[in-house]
């Protein structure tokens, strides 16, 4: 089943590339933030794919299972625990960013990054 892992790695790389591209090149701030959430999803998918074992079982020890068989067949659960934390962190970061965008929209009336996040040092010089 190496094909599955290959496909998943390619999908996660595709998500990361799409995310980085949009975070850098797209002008609309909400789309930038959506792109950032895709980077996070790609990284999460990659880390879960590390723990995956082809033909294995879910790493939950049920009563009546043979322990040695379980140890050699279960997927590696450590990456799954990490990804759980990382998903929640990603969602909270996204929420804070969107809150900042909502405040800034009230001031500028646009979602364009070129207007919103123009170099502030230059803006101060214009004001003088």
């Amino acid at each position, binding site marked *: 089943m190496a094909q*599955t892992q290959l*496909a*998943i790695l*390619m*999908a996660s790389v*595709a*998500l990361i590339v*799409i*995310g980085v591209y*949009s975070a850098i090149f*797209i002008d*609309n701030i*909400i*789309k930038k*933030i*959506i*792109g950032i*959430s*895709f980077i996070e*999803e790609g990284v*999460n*998918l990659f880390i*879960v*794919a590390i*723990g*995956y*074992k082809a033909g*294995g*079982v*879910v*790493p*939950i020890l049920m009563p009546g299972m043979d322990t040695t068989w379980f140890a050699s067949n279960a*997927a590696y659960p450590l990456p*799954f625990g990490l*990804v*759980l934390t990382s*998903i*929640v962190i*990603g*969602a909270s970061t*996204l*929420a804070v960013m*969107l809150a900042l*965008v*909502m405040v800034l*929209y009230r001031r500028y009336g*646009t*979602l364009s990054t070129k207007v919103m996040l123009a170099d502030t040092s230059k803006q101060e010089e214009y004001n003088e």
Partner: protein
Amino acid sequence: MLEFVLCIIMVLSAILALIQKDLLKAAILTGFSGGALAVLFQILLAPDVALTQAIVGAAIVPVFIALAVKKTQRSDD
């Protein structure tokens, strides 16, 4: 076989979300991508991660984005 389809759905909806002119549609497509990822986690033997991702990725994140879009503007220009 299912995992290939899910990978394709995920990447396609990500790309579609970013080329959408309507930001609300972009938010919904983000939810598609997150939901496909949740099923993919289930296939990768991580049911606990799949549950969290299903809630966060398919419901909470799109709702946050949709709320932000409602408070700001809907079209991308």
